[in-house]
């Protein structure tokens, strides 16, 4: 990156470090943090949508739909999440290819799963064999996002389901007394009021989501963990311009600091939002704020 970096062997001290930290592979490392943040930004609303759908269907008066929502919520609890992470990535991939297989392939006589292999015709591959590297990356990223959204959606559904039940019954009855239909009550009264009850659970979930992003590594994404292992491992072969010993410890320390900062900043931010939302609410913290003299 810098002019003087052309001959790394002649450099020493800080200058060497400045060159070392700006190599192309290091930029991939820095970029992977952006990937993590991108994943968070895409997954959080998607998981919330899954959660909302799950909670709404669990409350439904139509029994099969209600069961579906309950099974979704209960199914993800009680089982280690990493099992789901490993499971969904393959299951979604195979599911897509199998579905496509039914429509695109001409020869459907062969079984798809046989002899320990999963075989569909080339046209049914997702992504196609000749897809660009960008498409392959985007596809695996999309799979990871969907997996995260399904797993976290169940937890969000649980939080939202609890929040919907926490809205005072009298509010809903009043709305019914005004002649609103079920869906109007849901849309105009229940949903706007549930957020303050859902906030503690959702903020907890957000922090858990941040802390689960290293699992991207297990889903085959070249994330921060992958690069920390790659860059940190001992580089002693002759043609490496920046030889060094086993530095993985330092890279993982950097990751640790990154995650500690991310969770700390989130805690502070979420604390502010909670205070903001509690102002004027008939809850204990709102009451305490009022007594303290109205400053929030």
């Amino acid at each position, binding site marked *: 990156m810098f002019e003087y970096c052309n001959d790394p062997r002649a450099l020493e001290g800080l200058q060497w470090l400045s060159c070392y930290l700006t190599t192309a592979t290091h930029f991939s490392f820095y970029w992977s943090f952006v990937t993590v943040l991108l994943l968070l930004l895409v997954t959080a609303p998607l998981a919330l949508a899954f959660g909302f759908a799950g909670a709404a269907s669990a409350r439904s008066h139509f029994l099969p739909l209600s069961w579906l929502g309950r099974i979704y919520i209960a199914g993800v609890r009680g089982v*280690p999440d990493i099992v789901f992470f490993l499971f969904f990535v393959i299951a979604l991939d195979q599911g897509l290819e199998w579905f496509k297989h039914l429509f695109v392939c001409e020869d459907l006589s062969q079984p798809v799963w046989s002899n320990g292999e999963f075989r569909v015709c080339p046209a049914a591959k997702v992504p196609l064999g000749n897809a660009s590297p960008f498409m392959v990356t985007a596809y695996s990223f999309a799979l990871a996002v969907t997996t995260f959204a399904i797993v976290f959606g169940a937890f969000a559904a649980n939080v939202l389901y609890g929040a919907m039940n926490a809205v005072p019954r009298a509010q809903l009855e009043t709305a019914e007394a005004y002649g609103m239909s079920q869906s109007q009550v849901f849309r105009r009264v229940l949903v706007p009021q549930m957020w303050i009850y859902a906030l503690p659970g959702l903020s907890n979930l957000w922090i858990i989501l941040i802390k689960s992003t290293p699992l991207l*590594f297990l889903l085959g994404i070249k994330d921060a963990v992958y690069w920390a292992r790659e860059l940190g491992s001992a580089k002693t072969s002759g043609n490496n311009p920046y030889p060094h010993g086993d530095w993985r410890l330092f890279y993982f320390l950097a990751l640790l600091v990154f995650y500690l900062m991310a969770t700390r900043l989130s805690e502070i931010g979420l604390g502010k939002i909670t205070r903001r939302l509690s102002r004027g609410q008939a809850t204990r913290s709102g009451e305490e704020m009022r007594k303290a003299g109205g400053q929030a």
Partner: protein
Amino acid sequence: MSCWETIQAYAFRSLGYGERLLPKEGFDLCQQFTLIGSGLIWNIYFGTLALFFGFFLANAVALAKASRHAVLRKPAEWYIFLFRGSPLFIQFFLAYELLVLLPKAGIEIFGLHIETSWTTRAWAGALLTLFLNTAAYSAEIFYGALKTIPRGDLEAADAYGLSGWAKFRRIEWPTMLRLGWPAYTNEAIFLFHATTLVYFSGFPAFAQKGDALYYANYFADKTFNPFVPYPIVAFYFVLLTLAVTGLYGVVNRYLNRHLPSNQRQRIRLRPNLIR
């Protein structure tokens, strides 16, 4: 190979007994159930020991965090923040890299020779990490419980002339445990779930001796069919969760035995997935 033979060959494969090679063909349900169940031994080992040792450290750290002296309080706060604020996955990697740095030949302290090579093995290194991790989470639970002891109980203790150690041992500590127990039950359940991360992080599995998820992953890779092995893991973990809930429920009833039935703490499974 009949199912009975499979069980004989693989029931203790995760500990290194029985057949040396993992199954290469067949992959029937019996094989999968046996081998994944064999791996579950490691999950139970990690979970039980980490919980047992973590309980004592958690009590000490919770008390330190509640202390009036900054010398005790600050380190406890930092310890809890460090382990609760960062992903367990990263902690595993970091612990492994730290343990690798120990001198290979062993350490000499006061003429005593201490071997260090065993610390990088999963059974020791991962256990240490899980122990420190669960101690931090449990300490926060116990600290919270310590802060919510009803004022009336403490005043009653004062009125009876209890103070210092006697007050702590007879009033504060039992009440803290009682109040924190439902949350602590959840912590125990999710610690067992967290044990599945061990062989997917820094710690390598020697001679293919791994945990339940390690073998499930092996089968999923071999058969390219995730729909059998992962549900088996899920099945085993649901059983494990039920067992933990039952066991902790017994303790919970014991802690609440003096209360009228409508004031007792109930255990509810709450989501708190990844650490």
